[in-house]
């Protein structure tokens, strides 16, 4: 029962933190709730499918299937988050002024919602497939009764959801004017962290042989296994022992998304001289 509680809590929290940030980052976008709900549902269906084909995925490509698969969905998630972030940067001012006249951008808005739903679906699918595999294992062992299992999972789910909700409410409490710069930066770092975690996958698959040793070791300061380390790892991609490849992936992704959002979202020259 305890094992179920711990695993479910951890996986729900990891997906939940991402959903919390993305939700806060898209406040005021019409239709975002249904997009996120759809994303979660698609993610749950995806987890079951991934869990079902787990062995085949692992064995694919000469035993490198799982690494390639994970790296692939990580890159997809990075692109989706970046897209959403840049779109929000373009429209944050309209939304902070609460004009909400996004009529000319209805199409763009729908595209951004697709990115939002896709990012959520990937987060849920990644963590969810682990839950499904873990649970099938526990059920096969038959040590725990169904009641115990359900109880443990329910508490794990609840705890994970509560912590994620607390993060969302904390972000939502930031005044609207500042909130989009905070959440925009957070989504950017989230994307950078995901890009960085794709590095070891490719290196473990044997595709990248260079820059795969750690550059520094900060585990004495803040271990990635500690609860704070874990949360920071999910939110901003904290790594206690990053490899050169991870640092490059992180920096390149963060710089690119920051630059894109800054460039697309920067006010027109005439307006900026007025506000200066």
């Amino acid at each position, binding site marked *: 029962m305890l*094992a179920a509680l711990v*695993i479910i809590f951890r996986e729900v929290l990891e997906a939940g933190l991402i959903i919390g940030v993305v939700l806060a980052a898209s406040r005021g976008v019409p239709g975002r709730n249904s997009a996120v709900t759809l994303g979660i549902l698609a993610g749950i269906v995806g987890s079951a499918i991934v869990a079902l084909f*787990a*062995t085949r995925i*692992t*064995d694919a490509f000469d*035993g490198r299937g*799982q*690494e390639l698969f994970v790296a692939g969905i990580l890159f997809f998630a990075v692109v989706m988050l970046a897209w959403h972030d840049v779109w929000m940067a373009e429209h944050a001012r309209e939304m902070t002024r609460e004009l909400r006249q996004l009529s000319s951008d209805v199409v763009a808005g729908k595209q951004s919602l697709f990115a939002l739903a896709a990012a959520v679906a990937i987060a849920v699918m990644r963590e969810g497939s*682990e839950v499904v*595999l*873990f649970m*099938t*294992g*526990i059920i*096969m*062992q038959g040590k725990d009764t169904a009641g115990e299992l359900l109880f443990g999972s329910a508490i794990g789910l609840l705890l994970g959801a509560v912590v994620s909700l607390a993060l969302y409410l904390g972000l939502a409490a930031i005044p609207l004017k500042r909130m989009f710069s905070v959440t925009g930066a957070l989504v950017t770092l989230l994307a950078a962290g995901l890009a960085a975690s794709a590095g*070891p996958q490719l*290196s*473990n*698959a*044997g595709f990248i042989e*260079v*820059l*795969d*040793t750690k*550059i520094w070791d900060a585990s004495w300061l803040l271990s*990635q*296994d500690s609860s704070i380390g874990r949360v920071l790892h999910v939110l901003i991609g904290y790594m206690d*022992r990053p*490899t*050169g*490849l991870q*640092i*490059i992936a992180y*920096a*390149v992704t*963060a*710089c690119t998304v*920051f*630059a894109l959002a*800054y460039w697309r979202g920067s006010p027109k020259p005439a307006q900026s001289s007025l506000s200066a």
Partner: protein
Amino acid sequence: MSFRSIGRSIANPLSAFALLCASILAASALQLVAFSAHAAEELEIEIKIKDHKFDPAAIKLQAGQRAKLIVKNLDPTPEEFESNDIGFEKIIAGNSEATFRVKPLEPGTYIFFGEFHMDTALGHILVE
């Protein structure tokens, strides 16, 4: 563009961040030079998982030795073979096996574990 706006654009956080990124890139490039010459032979090690325990649970490696871990899960249940110290994490389905590549390591003890059975599935690699 006025002088003031140029000054502001230099001082803005984006430029500072870009500078930081550039210096990290430079540091990483140095690492590349340092390690590209290193190409050791790969050692193959087999680890079995039975009753949610590793056999062997203790492995010895030479510093700088590349290794390939072939982890055979003999249990019917899936296991997630993971090491934060080395940097891998992969699910191995019941009654199947998976391969893990271990990069050249510095001397020390590196813990690995099965995330689905943290109470029994524990092991380490000792690098000398």
